[in-house]
């Protein structure tokens, strides 16, 4: 396949955009500069490392190694979900709710064949995982902050004899909406406004656009399915954890 090879100077030029943004944040005192630079740095280091790892994994194509890398990716995604929460669940819940929901989400859509061929399995897993992670962390964030903010309204309903399902419904709905917002938006706008990264990558690498589109549609289905499954499990699980058998609101189970 013929494609334009990127030089390191191209990358350096593009990184100026991020630096300019960080500068802007400093000037306007938005407090984003540190986080943005840290995230950029992590992105560069992690992607470089993963490039090396994938290269050697492709050479070996061992089910064990592929599995190990997949598990590591999932565990890291779980940690990311936890780290992004303003209000975390107490104890083991803070980590296991997000991670468990993601594992559940993945058992649905991801069935590459052969599953251990890292050239298919890992990129697919990575794309679905990334989106599912964002969905779950947005959903949990909206759930916990919503319950804390609207505590009086939720407890007023409970005190009037509404069940926890009734009392939590508006906030659970808001949480699921915000979890699915990114994927719904990107499905709605894709092709008209945006060309998805994977499809663009395939086209840049010389693949027939029609073939690249087929792949992209598949991926969108998998992402939407994974994100919805994961978000529903995480948000309902979170709502269950923040209430109890006696239909009380249990914000004491947040840190």
């Amino acid at each position, binding site marked *: 396949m013929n494609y334009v090879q990127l030089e390191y100077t191209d990358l350096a030029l593009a990184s100026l955009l991020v630096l300019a943004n960080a500068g802007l944040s400093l000037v306007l005192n938005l407090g984003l500069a540190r986080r943005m630079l840290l995230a950029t740095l992590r992105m560069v280091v992690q992607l470089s490392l993963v490039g090396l790892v994938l290269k050697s994994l492709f050479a070996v194509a061992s089910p064990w190694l592929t599995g190990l890398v997949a598990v590591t990716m999932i565990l890291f995604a779980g940690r990311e979900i936890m780290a992004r929460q303003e209000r975390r669940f107490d104890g083991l819940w803070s980590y296991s709710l997000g991670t468990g929901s993601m594992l559940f989400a993945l058992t649905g859509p991801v069935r590459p064949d052969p599953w251990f061929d890292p050239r298919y399995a890992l990129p697919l897993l990575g794309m679905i995982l990334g989106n599912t992670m964002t969905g779950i962390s947005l959903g949990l964030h909206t759930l916990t902050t919503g319950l804390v903010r609207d505590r009086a309204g939720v407890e007023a309903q409970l005190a009037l004899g509404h069940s926890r399902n009734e009392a939590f419904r508006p906030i659970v709905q808001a949480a699921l909406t915000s979890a699915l917002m990114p994927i719904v938006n990107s499905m709605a706008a894709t092709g008209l406004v945006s060309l998805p990264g994977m499809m663009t990558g395939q086209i840049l690498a010389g693949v027939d656009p029609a073939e690249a589109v087929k792949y992209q549609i598949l991926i969108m289905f998998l992402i939407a399915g994974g994100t919805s499954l994961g978000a529903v499990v995480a948000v309902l699980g979170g709502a269950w954890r923040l209430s109890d058998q*006696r239909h009380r609101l249990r914000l004491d189970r947040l840190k």
Partner: protein
Amino acid sequence: MLEARKLSRLTLGPVDLSLEAGEVVALRGASGSGKTLLMRALADLDPCRGDVLLDDVERRAFFAPDWRKAVAWVPAEAGWWSDTVIEHFTDWQVALPLIEELGLSPDCGGWQVSRASTGERQRLALVRAISQQPKVLLLDEPTSGLDRQSVAQVETLIARLAGAGASVLWTTHDEDQAARVASRALLIENGKLAAAA
């Protein structure tokens, strides 16, 4: 009617308390002494130790939402979860006469909750709980933001409900009010309950 035995949670209790049918009991105590904790514990809104019985039936035997319909807590600052007033009522037709009795406009159902004044919201929250015909009313300073006429209307309404057999625990800082509405008063200090002098 309502009986609590060795009820305790955090700084509250252990509290023994018994309310007879038709009895209005005033609950007094400084801010932070545990009045709200006690009312929340009676309404089963916080996990706590001890037993609570309604008409000699253990609280555990009730489905929790049914318990709270029977033992209704009206907090000092009520919560709202929808935009308009009417959405907060299960049966507006039942609520309407009570709303008028408390001097509120009969078309307040269409109001935005945010448009109602503190005093109006306080009375609406009271009607919201009463219109579900609870057996026990836990009122947390139900007249704190009201003018004198509205206070009298609320006191008359509660007296009528007690006359019909409801038990009322009424938190107030106003000793004159406590003497007016209640047949006896309890004093809560550092989470411990005592009969007031």
